[in-house]
């Protein structure tokens, strides 16, 4: 591989192939769009994180700490809305998916490159609206926009929902694009059984994006019209049904949870395989569990509404189906562990995040059992237990998966290595801070502390204080990480094409990749995890000292 790359050393990489601002603004290159997404979502991650810190600092002590109740309500709403709609949902598909999906398929680009560009600008438009709404009174409904509060509050609900409505189309178009790409742009030899699991995960995600996102679009459109024209669909004062809004909302937003977690799982597959030098155990089961999760995910939305005044029949069906979700999730976890068995495991920072994912996602998943069980959920619903549960899945799962992917692919994307020691310090801070913040909240929730409270009774004070300190540690971890990555961009060592010695297809191209990913049309003769079929030159490209040791 090294020789092959050297032979083409004259060819510029995608970052240098074209220059000037125009070459970025009008680019249809999936890799450049991936980078643009990455920059945007990281910015919104920072903004969302800022609001999270505001919330946690306010809750550090009982009573008023730094802001008024109204401000607090806006802060947690913005934290939720920005993190969900502007960060997590577009994060992995938009940034890493855009960048790596075509490369892993051996394609030159996604099926519809111009649509890809359009999708990015729709995202930007939605994001601008969302940020602009902060200036005009923000929004205090919680990210769920439950009616009738959202039809009564005088905050900028219309603006924010319009922004989410627009963002939805970005998500849909990305999904459409990826589905067509995976079906039609696979390189010769790359049949479904050889598809990298990252691609399987993105594929399942795309199906949800296409089938679920339009429902949130229409829901928010009705909500906007309910505010502007008054309709009587959701507004009880006009004969509407507020609980119906919850059905509409969760028909999207529950599958959306899988839009968030499936890509995280997808990345963990790649990282675990690479760093244990082993094909993922039960490949087909893992691939199918992604598709299974995507489909079953559509049938369980009502478990967000067990205490909402739903009929008993609906609760019965939704609770029963909810437990089915545990099956594919369990299949994944068991297969990941089996992958480690008889592997050759090394512990670079991407692997640390992937292993942390395994632990944290297990906690997130197992605590989901409490919430799926009807009688127990009655007690835990809308308490901090739920907050902790979904942060374990969304942060411990998706964000850790995203970070695993970001560390893993960083050398490929930018052609630069980062400071591994600093990366491990950041990992330690993030891992410890995260658990301090959110494990505490399981205890708070089981004791009955409700969500979205500006204030709390005195006996909750110690745990809230501890949780807030954890949030500061978490924030510090992210600062260290940001410093580490920026330093890598500025002065990182040049990355070899395959620094981790992975058998994955994406490592066969240069770091950073050339403009059209590969020279000509690649032909896949082995699977992406077939370490026993890969040559030593391929695998130890990045570990010359190990290659030397072998000789």
């Amino acid at each position, binding site marked *: 591989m090294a020789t092959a790359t050297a032979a083409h050393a004259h060819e510029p990489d995608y970052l240098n192939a074209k220059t000037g601002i125009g070459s970025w603004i009008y680019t249809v290159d999936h890799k450049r769009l991936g980078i643009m997404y990455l920059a945007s979502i990281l910015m919104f991650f920072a903004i969302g994180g800022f609001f999270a810190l505001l919330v946690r600092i306010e809750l550090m002590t009982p009573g008023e700490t730094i802001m008024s109740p109204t401000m607090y309500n806006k802060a947690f709403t913005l934290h939720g809305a920005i993190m969900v709609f502007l960060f997590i949902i577009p994060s992995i598909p938009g940034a890493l998916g855009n960048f790596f999906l075509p490369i892993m398929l051996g394609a*030159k*680009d996604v099926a*519809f490159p111009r649509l890809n560009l359009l999708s990015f600008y729709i995202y930007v438009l939605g994001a601008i609206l969302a940020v602009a709404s902060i200036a005009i009174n923000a929004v205090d409904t919680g990210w769920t926009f439950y009616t009738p509060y959202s039809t009564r509050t005088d905050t900028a609900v219309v603006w924010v929902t319009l922004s989410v409505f627009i963002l939805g189309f970005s998500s849909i178009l990305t999904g459409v*694009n990826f589905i067509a790409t995976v079906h039609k742009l696979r390189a010769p030899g790359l049949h479904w059984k050889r598809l990298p699991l990252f691609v399987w995960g993105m594929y399942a995600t795309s199906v949800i994006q*296409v*089938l679920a996102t339009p429902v949130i679009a229409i829901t928010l459109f*009705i909500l906007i019209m309910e505010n502007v024209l008054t*309709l009587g669909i959701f507004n009880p004062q006009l004969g509407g049904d507020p609980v119906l809004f919850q059905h509409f909302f969760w028909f999207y937003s529950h599958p959306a949870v899988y839009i968030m977690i499936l890509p995280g799982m997808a990345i963990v597959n790649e990282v675990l395989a690479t760093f244990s030098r082993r094909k993922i155990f039960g490949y087909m089961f893992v691939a199918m569990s992604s598709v299974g999760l995507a489909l079953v995910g559509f049938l369980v939305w009502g478990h967000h509404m067990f205490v909402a005044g739903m009929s008993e029949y609906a609760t019965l069906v939704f609770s029963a189906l909810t437990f089915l979700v545990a099956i594919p999730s369990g299949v994944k976890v068991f297969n990941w562990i089996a992958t480690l068995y008889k592997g050759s495991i090394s512990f670079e920072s991407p692997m640390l995040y992937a292993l942390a994912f395994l632990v944290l996602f297990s906690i997130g998943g197992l605590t989901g059992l409490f919430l799926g069980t009807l009688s127990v959920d009655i007690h835990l619903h809308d308490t901090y237990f739920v907050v902790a549960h979904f942060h374990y899945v969304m942060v411990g799962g998706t964000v850790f998966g995203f970070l695993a992917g970001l560390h893993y692919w960083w050398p490929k994307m930018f052609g630069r290595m980062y400071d591994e020691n600093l990366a491990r310090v950041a990992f330690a801070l993030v891992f410890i801070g995260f658990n301090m913040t959110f494990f505490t909240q399981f205890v708070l929730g089981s004791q009955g502390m409700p969500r979205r409270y500006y204030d709390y009774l005195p006996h909750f004070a110690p745990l809230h204080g501890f949780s807030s300190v954890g949030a500061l540690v978490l924030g510090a971890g992210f600062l260290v990480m940001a410093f580490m990555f920026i330093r890598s961009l500025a002065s990182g060592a040049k990355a070899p094409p395959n620094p981790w010695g992975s058998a994955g297809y994406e490592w066969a191209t240069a770091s950073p990749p050339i403009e059209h990913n590969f020279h*000509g049309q690649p032909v896949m003769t082995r699977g992406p995890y077939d370490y026993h079929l*890969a040559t030593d030159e391929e695998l130890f490209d990045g570990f010359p000292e190990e290659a030397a040791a072998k000789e």
Partner: protein
Amino acid sequence: MSADTHAHEGHDGHGHHGPKWLQHHFETPIQQFESSKLGMWAFLAQEILFFSGLFVAYGIFRIAYPEAFAAGSMQLNKIMGGANTIVLLFSSLTAALAVRSAQLGKKDEVTRYLFITIICAFGFMVIKYFEYTAKFEHGLLPGIHWNPSHLVGIDAPLDHMHVFFGVYFMLTGLHGVHVLIGIGILFWIMMRNHNGEFSKEYWTPVDLAALYWHLVDLVWIYLFPLLYLI
């Protein structure tokens, strides 16, 4: 993988040998065609779910308030609705015929059929305009604007009748927006066809535009009986 990755390197990696409408990242015309079709169908699937929200709202409230919905439906003009159905079905026919002509490479026929389709779409909007103005005049409006002054078949408005009109205006309004977007798309495709961009080998955009237009028709096929007939 290693050696084979570059198996096709012998070809020139960048300069494309295909026709100019074949985008650089596709290997063959059929790959491009099938990608486009799959993409379009996926997009149509999302349209179905986009409209599904309003259909669900309709279903829920119709079952909850059957009398109010029956009475609301009575206020609508079956003749106008029926006429619109036929106009839209006819436009769907001409759209399908436009695709057929495109497949045969008959450029002028394509333009003619697309033109008829667009005329029908405008016809649909004109009839819709007359329907809407009648509803506005009679105060048959959703929510707080509900102020009926003229009712057919019943003496007094029923509770929740305004909910019917809320759903009615949302469904037909959103459908109308789709018709307007469709007019834009069809016009754009017609102009591209007029400029000779399509041929017997390459007519995918005509096909995709027609697919979109058929979907607009499909939605109306359900809207018509749901709102006007029952």
